[in-house]
């Protein structure tokens, strides 16, 4: 199980959870597992950047990036708020 950090705008569909555990050996598997448990995430996750242990998966293997059981996955959408 890897830890996945849920960004604030998506917590309404994760029962308010800030962090959830997810199954899978790759980022793609992890995201699929998340969507199967929280169907409200379907279609939303592609708008968030994904970081595995602090590194952007776009410079790793994208959805094929392997995720170790002790890895932390961060989902990060852009936020505009400043006021």
């Amino acid at each position, binding site marked *: 199980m890897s830890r996945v950090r849920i960004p604030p705008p998506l917590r309404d569909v994760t029962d308010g959870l800030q962090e959830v555990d997810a199954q899978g050996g790759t980022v793609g598997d992890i995201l699929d597992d998340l969507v199967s448990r929280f169907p409200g995430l379907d279609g939303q996750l592609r708008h968030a950047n994904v970081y595995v242990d602090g*590194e952007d998966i776009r410079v790793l293997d994208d959805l094929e990036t392997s995720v170790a059981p002790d890895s932390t996955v961060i989902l990060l959408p852009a936020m505009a708020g400043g006021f």
Partner: protein
Amino acid sequence: MATYRELLEQVREQIDEIGVSEAASRLEAADPPLVVDVRERHEWDEGRLPEAVHIPRGSLESRIERAAPDRSAPILVYCGSGTRSAFAAKTLEDLGYESVSNLDGGIAEWKRNGFPVVVSESLSPAQRTRYSRHLLIPEVGEEGQLRLLESRVLLVGAGGLGSPAALYLAAAGVGTLGIVDDDAVDATNLQRQIVHSTDRLGEPKVESAKRTIEALNPDVTVRAFRERLTSENVDRIFDEGWDVIVDGADNFPTRYLVNDASVWHGIPVVHGSIFRFEGQVTVLEPGEGPCYRCIFPQPPPPELAPSCAEGGVLGVLPGIIGSLQANEALKTALGIGDRLVGRLLLFDALAPSFTEVVLRKDPQCPVCGESPTITEYVDYVEFCQRAGAHA
């Protein structure tokens, strides 16, 4: 027992002395010496050699190592006429400095031969008191404080993030603060926008911020732009010689506009954003790190990007994130420390925790990449609507 004159003669025999013409040509060379002025403060204030650092004779031994850590690098010392600096040169040699020269005839001879002298600004007695806690920090000191007083920071937005940033930058003595905002102070702002107050309700935010800042620190000049930043006015506003921009906007079109304009104007942006209990901070330094489009090529759809007006924000959160932005802006202005270039700092007020992720420059970036496809301002509202995000 040697007399003063005999001692001076002895010292002069042991050190290297060069004339003003030789000194001038060494200063023009590719690898110029460190120039050290060993006179007293009032003499330094009246004029000095260009690029000189000020280390009074009495503090030479204790302060030279910070200014000149490499003992093999060349040093040129001078004073008024070349005698005090002759002793200083001898001291430096005794400390192990291998290439020390004394300016024969001192700054008097330098001036007589028509070489340039810089009259440095100095702090007034009131400023020395006001900024005393900065002056005590070696990384800031008088030189850094003068730098802050000459620096220019542009704040986009006088709201949640802009409020603490403006207050701390003003208190720190940033000489010119520009503020762009077309809003008026509203009762719902006062839970977090601390540059405004209850008696300012209905007042333009730039005017309210200007009054607060000027009351806090009369050294600060406020340039108020009571307008919304747009493709039409951004060049006029960004062209005013800003050293750094603090982005505290509240919508995606302005975020992308600030990004594109700052890349084209070559101005670093301290980016901050907030939502409920979480904030993000990074520094977008053109040419050095990624730009906003490298990180977020497209704005997210509305359901993923509610504004603070829709989703709410803990009042203290912009205080924390805006202060972190002020910290990055001050380091940028002072040229000290490590900045959040290529790093995004995430703050969670509930945990509470700071997390960092690495941000990479995208070689395919349409604005700052190798073959840019966006080279002029676009319709940013339309761009964000097309991508699905609202203003």
